[in-house]
């Protein structure tokens, strides 16, 4: 189990976090650029000394500011895979991979070395110069080099950002396979929502140096604790509502009076009547239905199509609900394109009660 809590003040930024990662768990940290994700990893790796805090893992202390203790970076055995090409250009691929193993002890590590080369499928690259490798091969060698030292923790700082989509897919699958095999804690930092969902066992959403929510990935995706978390998780449609009927879980939009039945409130629901909360709807949760009269059926609405944009697998539509100032975004699968009306015309939409979520502002 990894337990860390750090406070680090900079001139215009403060990192204040507390986190726990279980053995063989992959924690994904999601947040926009500049939210402190890399600073947190630098604290864990030992490049930044926190003002206050402690960090211990598997019974070993890495940091204890109370006792002014900070384990040196080179004694931590924490693999840190950062963005970009960090291979040593003056060494061959083989020398890069064996960098952490002292020359005299290399014979003892031969089995692990061979196993890693097989696992990462890089046997053929050993005598090549690193400059001649492709982007994907470089990343594989970087991963092999990091794992060769038998790390107690692996930190990934947006390692595949600069790569193309296919390569990212391939390498993220590799990380998942490694996680299964190595059974060590990993912390993976990204700002890519899809990547985060794919990789995570648990997920932490960071904003301005704080972890806003840390939870199991399904729980956090279905029950964001605040509007900021929802925004980070790509819940684009958000409107302010008040609870009208606790038993039926009916919510009323404050400004327009539209009512929504929500069956996904769980413990985040503040049932006090009159307390303003946020209703979140994912674009893919809004579906087109045959024309009906507004309000005749629960969660059905008559909307005006404002714009449409063709994406790879769907149309992104911007729709306006009468009386609501903010526009809604919905995704229409391409096989439903015949149901779409012209821009400016009215159509009917339905939002499933279990796909809507309530959270605090």
């Amino acid at each position, binding site marked *: 189990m990894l337990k860390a809590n750090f406070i680090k003040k900079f001139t215009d930024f403060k990192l204040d976090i507390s986190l726990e990662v279980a053995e063989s768990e992959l924690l994904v940290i999601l947040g926009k650029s500049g939210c402190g994700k890399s600073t947190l990893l630098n604290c864990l790796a030992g490049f930044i000394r926190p003002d206050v805090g402690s960090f211990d893992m598997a019974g070993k202390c890495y940091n204890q500011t109370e006792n002014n203790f900070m384990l040196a*970076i080179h004694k931590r055995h924490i693999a840190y895979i950062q963005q970009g090409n*960090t291979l040593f250009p003056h060494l061959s691929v083989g020398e890069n991979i064996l960098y952490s193993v002292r020359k005299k002890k290399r014979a003892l590590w031969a089995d692990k070395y061979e196993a890693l080369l097989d696992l990462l499928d890089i046997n053929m690259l050993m005598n090549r110069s690193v400059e001649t490798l492709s982007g994907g091969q470089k990343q594989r060698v970087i991963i092999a080099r990091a794992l060769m030292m038998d790390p107690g923790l692996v930190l990934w700082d947006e390692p595949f950002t600069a790569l193309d989509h296919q390569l990212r897919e391939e390498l993220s699958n590799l990380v998942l396979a490694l996680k299964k095999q190595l059974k060590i804690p990993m912390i993976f930092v990204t700002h890519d929502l899809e990547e985060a969902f794919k990789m995570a066992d648990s997920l932490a959403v960071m904003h301005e140096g704080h972890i806003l929510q840390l939870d199991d990935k399904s729980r956090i995706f279905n029950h964001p604790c605040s509007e900021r978390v929802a925004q980070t998780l790509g819940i684009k449609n958000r409107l302010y509502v008040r609870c009208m009927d606790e038993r039926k879980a009916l919510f009323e939009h404050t400004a327009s009076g539209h009512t929504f039945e929500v069956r996904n409130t769980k413990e985040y629901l503040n049932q006090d009547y009159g307390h303003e909360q946020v209703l979140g709807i994912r674009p893919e949760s809004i579906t087109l239905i045959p024309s009906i009269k507004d309000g005749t059926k629960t969660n059905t609405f008559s909307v005006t199509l404002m714009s449409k944009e063709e994406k790879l697998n769907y149309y992104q539509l911007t729709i306006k609900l009468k009386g609501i100032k903010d526009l809604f975004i919905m995704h229409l699968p391409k096989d439903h394109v015949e149901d779409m009306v012209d821009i400016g015309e009215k159509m009917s939409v339905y939002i499933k009660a279990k796909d809507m979520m309530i959270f605090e502002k």
Partner: protein
Amino acid sequence: MKYRKISITFYIIVIGMIALPLISLLTSLFEYPLSFTDNPLLVEAIKVSFKSSMIMMVFVIILGTPIAYVSARLSFKGKKLLDIMLDLPLVLPPAVAGLLLLMTLGKESFIGSILLKLGWQIPFSLTAVILAQLFVTLPVYIKTLADGFRQVDPLLEQTAMTLGDSTFQAFIKISLPLAKHSILTGAIMAWARGIAEFGATIMFAGNMPSITQTLPLAIYSAMESDMTAAMNIARFMVIVSLMVLLVLYKLSSKEQGHVKG
């Protein structure tokens, strides 16, 4: 088009300004015949110049390498001022540099008088030649190498540290090999600057044959009595300079520093 013509004209004029003295050095062969061996002044000056410059280079590398690294990597309060101080010998007239060294380490100075009591007279000795050369060449080496260290991605050193290297090991195993071209270039440029040193040396070390008389000082002395010797020393220095240039060109074509991504 007109601008291009003017530029080409200037280019030819400047090349001519450099080439003409070299040509005259060749045409002077009729008047002052070539003789490198039968020239005791040249032989002694070569000995002094090479001995002093080689010792100077040892100090330049030992002192300059860590300073260049600090200059490239660290930032702290007052560092800009220290960087300006380091660059000062580059713009200071060499004669002034020599005078300042004399004021600092001469017999009358505080440090000089203590050293003299300990039986060590620095001015007008080979040590003074070395110090004068060191004073003017150290910034050349530091500047070149600091630029080289800046080209090495700091992420590589950090990665080496996460892989088990201490800061010093990462410096030795990563930064130094990746900056090796800059080390060589800086060392050659510093050596070339040191061997050509005149002003600071004559002020601080004097012009004593076989003791402090370096090649440029030997030309200066020979001009008064033996023009053939002066011309031959000059020819020797031109050959050395051309060799230095050739090595530098060779190095720069091989340069493959790891540039920050």
